[in-house]
């Protein structure tokens, strides 16, 4: 009789290998890694630095305000793109098929993508923050830097679910276009690039309900800028959006499973 020792591979090493592979898959695609890391500091250089010392409300400079905007923009960008495009590409190239036939637990697949995305998001912040400090002369209290970082990372979770949903709902070639069509306009509408007051009236009327709006408010509040509603309200809305996006993603995932694997 065959001697059966361990019947399955231990989860820890699988998770480490899978996460490393997911990281390399994103890192080696410059269209993703370079744009997610350098686009935010480029925007900051073009828009933020020029009037960074201008005081826009008591104790808040435009430099700090725009740093919060770009932190929110870049982290949400990483979350939506890394998930949306990698999931759509893997479906398109039928990578999911071979993975499905291996003993890799599906939860590892999901976790490894989340860890990779959060890690990438942390890299973008690790580049953006020093850049704002040195080039933009932004000075914040230590607690403000920390609050900004953790709020931006924690608040990005709903966008992971959104990226997942887009990855399962769009094709490998259309994912980038779909994401840009959704993400860029809502980033503008939420006031991440210029004040909402400059937007057309009807966009101003829907803007306060966009997920990026609440996410942005969390960032601006962290550096001491006045916001429309309380931080608690922002979190509650984000949790609500997170649950909604997650349910859409789950539905899209199940739909795909039903089509491919029954």
């Amino acid at each position, binding site marked *: 009789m065959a001697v059966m020792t361990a019947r399955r*591979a231990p989860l820890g090493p699988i998770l480490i290998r899978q996460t490393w592979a997911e990281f*390399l898959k994103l890192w080696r695609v410059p269209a993703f890694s370079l744009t997610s890391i350098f686009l935010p500091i480029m925007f900051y250089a073009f828009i933020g630095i020029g009037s960074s010392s201008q005081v826009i409300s008591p104790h808040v400079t435009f430099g700090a305000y725009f740093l919060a905007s770009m932190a929110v923009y870049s982290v949400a960008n990483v979350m939506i793109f890394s998930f949306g495009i990698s999931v759509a590409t893997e479906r398109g190239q039928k990578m999911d098929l071979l993975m499905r036939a*291996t*003993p890799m637990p599906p939860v590892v697949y999901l976790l490894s993508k989340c860890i990779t995305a959060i890690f990438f998001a942390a890299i973008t912040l690790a580049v953006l923050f020093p850049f704002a400090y040195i080039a933009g002369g932004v000075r914040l209290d230590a607690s403000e830097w920390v609050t900004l970082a953790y709020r931006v990372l924690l608040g990005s979770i709903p966008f992971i679910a959104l990226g997942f949903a887009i990855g399962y709902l769009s094709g490998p070639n259309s994912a980038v276009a779909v994401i840009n069509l959704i993400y860029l306009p809502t980033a503008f509408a939420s006031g991440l690039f210029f004040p909402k007051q400059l937007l057309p009236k009807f966009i101003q009327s829907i803007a306060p309900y966009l997920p990026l709006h609440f996410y942005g408010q969390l960032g601006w509040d962290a550096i001491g800028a006045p916001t429309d509603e309380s931080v608690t309200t922002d979190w509650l809305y984000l949790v609500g959006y997170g649950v909604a996006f997650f349910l859409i993603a789950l539905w899209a995932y199940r739909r795909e499973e039903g089509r491919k*694997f029954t």
Partner: protein
Amino acid sequence: MPAAAELIEATKKYGDTEALKGVTLTIELGEVVAMLGPNGAGKTTSISLLLGLRKPTSGKALLFGLNPDHLDARSRVGVMLQESGIPTVLKVSEIVDLFRSYYPKPMARDRAIAMAGLEEKTNAQVKELSGGQKQRLYFALAVCGDPDVLFLDEPTVGMDVEGRRSFIERIAEFAQLGRTVVLTTHYLEEADQLAKRVVVIDRGLVIADASPQEIKSRVAGKRVRFKTSALADKDLEGLPITTSTITDHSVQLLTNQPEAVLKELFRRGVEISELEVSGADLEDAFISLTTHTPTA
């Protein structure tokens, strides 16, 4: 001990199409089995059911007596699928290491890469590989977990003759470790070279399940070839042949009774030259099995 893989009265419908119409098949540990059949016969569907990639519409599929979804079962299985992709920016060594981590007792990375003959490409990214090299990488990924059972769905598809020959040797090398190998194929000489058991599937049913020798002896054991200046359809009427191929003046017949066939042809006064009688290879046997629905 449960069988390595088992289908019990398994059927599979895709919409209105019945891909499998009730297949019962037991594959024991250590067997090397080839599944033969034309396109759309149900070979890939059978493998998909055994791997848990698809669920049977009725009946059962089991891996080591377990549901094929079960990770304990999957941990003992290596797979090469017909249509599947792998991340193009990962290096060969990286993706082999990744797949090794999925299994409880993987083989050393270098050994898996050597079994696939990819030593020189260890540090190349997947996108730099040729079609044949990619196919060999899939083989490395299938064996790197040192599985008890290896499923190969048309492993040599798209390879040239030389590539196929060396690939078959690699599969044979793995089978010699005493492992179970289940492969589907179009290239019938592969089945003949590798397998001790051939399962012929046609239109969703198993129509033959025997050793390559038995299949050859059971159906269309001999091939009769000759040239003739004139051959009418009625000249072949009522002869004990399974198939006939006539091109210009060359005639090829598959039969179990070459003597009776020739005697009758001579009696009917058919002019015969360059007569040749030889044992049919598996390909011939296969053609006669699948073109005639009632089994001999």
